[in-house]
């Protein structure tokens, strides 16, 4: 179906090719998963399938790509519209019309299909994707999961034989992501579609894939194989795989179910080790029992932020209602909840970016909303969902210098933080040319320049691969240990499990759960990280917890 023959791709302003000598064949009705670290060219590879690279992005391509017998060299992307359905990262970017039904019909109109055919296909697609009740709705009123399904539907109506999706679940909460992936699985199984999928959060998709393409690095050769083979050595791996690697299982289990069946021995072993270490002495227990060590690591638990009866409404619609919260120094708190539950609103209300109708917010004794801007940066910092909102300058160095001026800190403070967090960021680069992860670290450094007592991060893990997320989790823990209070709004349960020691869950503008991360996430099937599901009822959340327990006993 799709064939790459010694394809080399190079962007115009780079000296090294992004992908070199790619030979790849994806046959019909196959679900192919493209994985790799950030910036290794996953999106570029997907865009090359229908010729958006290089026809739209610029750059040079040598070699030959054919889809259904047509070469991208002789055909423009629009001429592949009947064969390839392409769904980008953010569905909003691809919407042309504003009503669900019209959006579904758009592609067919471009192909000039007959009216009766269009009517039939729109009805079919509404059924397949469960969109019947939404047909007359405006796209702007849909939730994230619904939008993603409409985006998939809008390319399905032309009856393509190939579906290409770039991180379809990256912006979705866990239930919405499940919704979209279930749809994809049905399309492969029922319609025999060929699906090419790029993903960062592999924990949900790795067991769905037939083949896997692993991009090992810029310009490096790619690896193609079955998921189990690729995952054994891959540079990115979900927790279930890491656990399998740690335990030395072969073949690697790919799903929670497989892993749980293999894990009976490990679970017994871990249980006896826990019991043994707890009888040995209670001090060591604190460090060895995984999650417990985080709960007691903090030195000073003074209250940094105090929120009482916070109520926020947009245009008469309540978003947050009567929130009471104490934010403690030395603690990383995760804020979870479905899309639209009020996570971002809570963070914005804390920094005073949104006006609240009732209640009080006080951070180290001041209300951030009334603080002058130059004092605000020394009190509370927010890394927004789109970090580039905070970047205005032409280079990293200029950005750092500006941050020092804004916060009134000695020159070089911000640059020092960047060095400390991620030395690989070069000072002369334009912030736009940084990778997703590097940009986040730069903004984090800028925000931390004023050394605010309270640090807030809104969905920081979007577009980050596993190693980058681990780095970020370590950085946040370190900040907490130095006495900052950290709040992270996220729907990445694995990240929350790794990075936080307290979790609150927002629903309908209220706090429904507040407690230690270990207890909160284990109690909920929607939030439980993979390791907790595999090793239940042991209260272990991450591979590091398991590793610590195993190594601790050995030592």
């Amino acid at each position, binding site marked *: 179906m799709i064939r790459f023959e010694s394809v080399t791709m190079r962007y115009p302003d780079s000296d090294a090719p992004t992908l070199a000598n790619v030979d790849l064949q994806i046959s019909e009705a196959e679900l192919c998963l493209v994985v790799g670290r950030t910036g290794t060219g996953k999106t570029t590879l997907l865009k090359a399938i229908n010729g*958006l690279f290089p026809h*739209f992005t610029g750059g040079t391509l040598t070699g030959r790509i054919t889809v259904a017998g047509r070469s991208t060299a002789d055909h423009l*992307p*629009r*001429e*592949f*519209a009947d064969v390839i359905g*392409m769904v*980008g990262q953010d569905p909003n*970017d*691809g919407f*042309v019309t*504003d009503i669900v*039904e*019209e959006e579904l019909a*758009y*592609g*067919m*109109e*471009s*192909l*000039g299909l007959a*009216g009766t055919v*269009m*009517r039939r296909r*729109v009805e079919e697609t509404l059924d397949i994707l469960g969109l019947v009740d939404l047909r*007359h*709705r405006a796209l702007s*009123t*849909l*939730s994230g999961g619904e939008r993603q399904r409409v985006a998939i539907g809008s*390319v399905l109506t*032309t009856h393509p034989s190939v579906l290409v999706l770039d991180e379809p679940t990256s912006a979705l909460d866990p239930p919405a992501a499940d919704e979209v992936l279930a749809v994809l699985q049905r399309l492969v199984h029922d319609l025999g579609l060929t699906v090419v999928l790029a993903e960062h959060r592999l924990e949900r998709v790795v067991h769905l894939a037939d083949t896997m393409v692993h991009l090992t690095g810029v310009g490096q050769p790619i690896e193609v194989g079955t998921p189990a083979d690729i995952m054994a050595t891959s540079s990115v791996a979900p927790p279930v795989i890491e656990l399998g690697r740690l335990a030395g299982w072969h073949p690697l289990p790919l799903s929670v179910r497989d892993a749980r069946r293999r894990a009976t021995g490990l679970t017994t072993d871990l249980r006896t080790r826990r019991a043994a270490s707890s009888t040995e002495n209670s001090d060591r227990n604190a460090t060895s029992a995984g999650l417990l060590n985080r709960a007691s690591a903090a030195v000073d638990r003074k209250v940094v932020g105090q929120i009482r009866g916070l109520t926020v409404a947009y245009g008469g*619609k309540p978003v947050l209602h009567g929130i009471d919260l104490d934010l403690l120094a030395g603690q990383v708190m995760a804020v979870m*909840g*479905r899309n*639209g539950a009020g996570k971002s609103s809570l963070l*914005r209300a804390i*920094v005073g*970016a949104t006006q609240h109708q009732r209640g009080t917010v006080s951070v180290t004794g001041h209300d951030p909303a009334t603080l*002058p*801007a130059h004092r*605000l940066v020394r009190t509370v*910092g927010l890394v*927004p969902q*789109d970090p*580039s*909102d*905070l*970047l*205005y300058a032409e280079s990293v160095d200029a950005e750092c210098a500006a*941050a020092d001026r*804004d*916060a009134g800190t000695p020159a070089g403070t911000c640059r020092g933080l960047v060095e400390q967090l991620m030395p690989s960021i070069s000072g002369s680069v334009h912030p736009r040319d940084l990778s997703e992860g590097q940009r986040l670290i730069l903004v984090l450094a*800028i925000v931390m320049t004023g050394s605010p007592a309270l640090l807030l991060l809104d969905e920081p893990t979007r577009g980050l691969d596993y190693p980058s997320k681990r780095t970020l989790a370590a950085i946040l823990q370190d900040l907490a240990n130095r006495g900052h209070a950290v709040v992270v709004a996220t729907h990445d349960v694995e990240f929350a499990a790794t990075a936080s020691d307290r979790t609150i*869950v927002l*629903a*309908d503008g209220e706090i*429904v759960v507040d407690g230690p991360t270990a207890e909160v996430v284990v109690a909920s099937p*929607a939030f439980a990280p993979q390791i907790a599901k595999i090793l239940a009822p042991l209260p272990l959340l991450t591979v590091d917890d398991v590793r610590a327990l195993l190594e601790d006993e050995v030592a």
Partner: protein
Amino acid sequence: MRAPDVTTPRRGIFAFSETWVGLRPRAVHPGAWWAWAVCLAIAASRIHHPLLLALLVAVAGSVVMARRTDAPWSRSFTLFLRIGLVVIAIRTIAQTVFGVPSPGRVLVTLPSVELPGWAAGIAIGGPITDTALAVALTDGMRLAAVLACIGAANALANPKRMLASLPAALYEVGVAVVIALSFAPSLATSVQRVRAARRLRGRNDHGIAGWFEVAVPVIDDALARSLSLAAAMDARGYGRTLPMTPRARRQSSTLLLTGLAGLTVGVVALLNAQLATEWSLATLGISIILAVTGIRLAGHRSPRSRYRPDPWATAEWVTICSGAITVAAVIVTSAIAPRMIQPVLIPMSSWPLPWLATGGILVAMLPGFATPRPADNAAQASVSPPRIARWESAT
């Protein structure tokens, strides 16, 4: 999702029409609404009779009330009415204060300004007579009525469906307009977001420098978005063309250009009273035919088809014909009895009521109940419905 509510009766006196017409709810073709409204506007521009003008506005308003949707543009009728009131006020003040002195009973005498001899005939201030006031008010009403007709078309015709009905050759222009319309709100939120973010950097948003710094990320954002939209549209087949011979392309562009040039000449000639009207009308007619043929030929190049196009059926004919009848009745009346449609305004008791024009205007009410009522369009609902709570049960 709000279920289409078919059984609920509509507002006021039109409640009976639901059962009477028994048509499936659908939107009437926007072109029909515009044609109807333009007919009414032409009629209004010929009427100098306050009562008839008021009747005409009332008729247009009743149709708007009966057939508008909940869409944002449906509220534009009241806006146009308000603009009309302002026009009446301005017109009245201007005409009474700066107008030529007219006979009649003096209502009030304003202090007047003596103008030099070359401006004889124009007076500022001075006595205001009842005739002058009545004439000014009626003139203002005429303009306001024309505005109300345009407002009615705006409220009734869905602008996006109107663009969708454009001929294929103009389709790309239409898409550009639609995208521009949907980008404006997102640009506004983008500006808000970035301005809020500036405070997080410890800067205040005062001064021109501040605005420049806001502009950088906002424009960056907008550009990135338009690029990805362009890519997405291309990947979905936008701009696919059928092969066309160079000769056919030359033909269609020649026709189109000649037609447009002729159109300009024709309009200028028509406005210029010294040229013969027949000639300018002929030029106009021929150029319109040329331009339409050119657009049609160019349209053959695009293979696009249209999903659920607005049908042109009885309701559309009813709408257009009712408007045509109105304008015909008014024109006929003004031809056979000009005093009836442009009465002597003072004394008021002498206003005649021409039965033909009155009846004609009332016919324009027909689309208010003889067309299918619009489907309750949940698409315009701005409130997002609650999502099924799946998590509560899970926790």
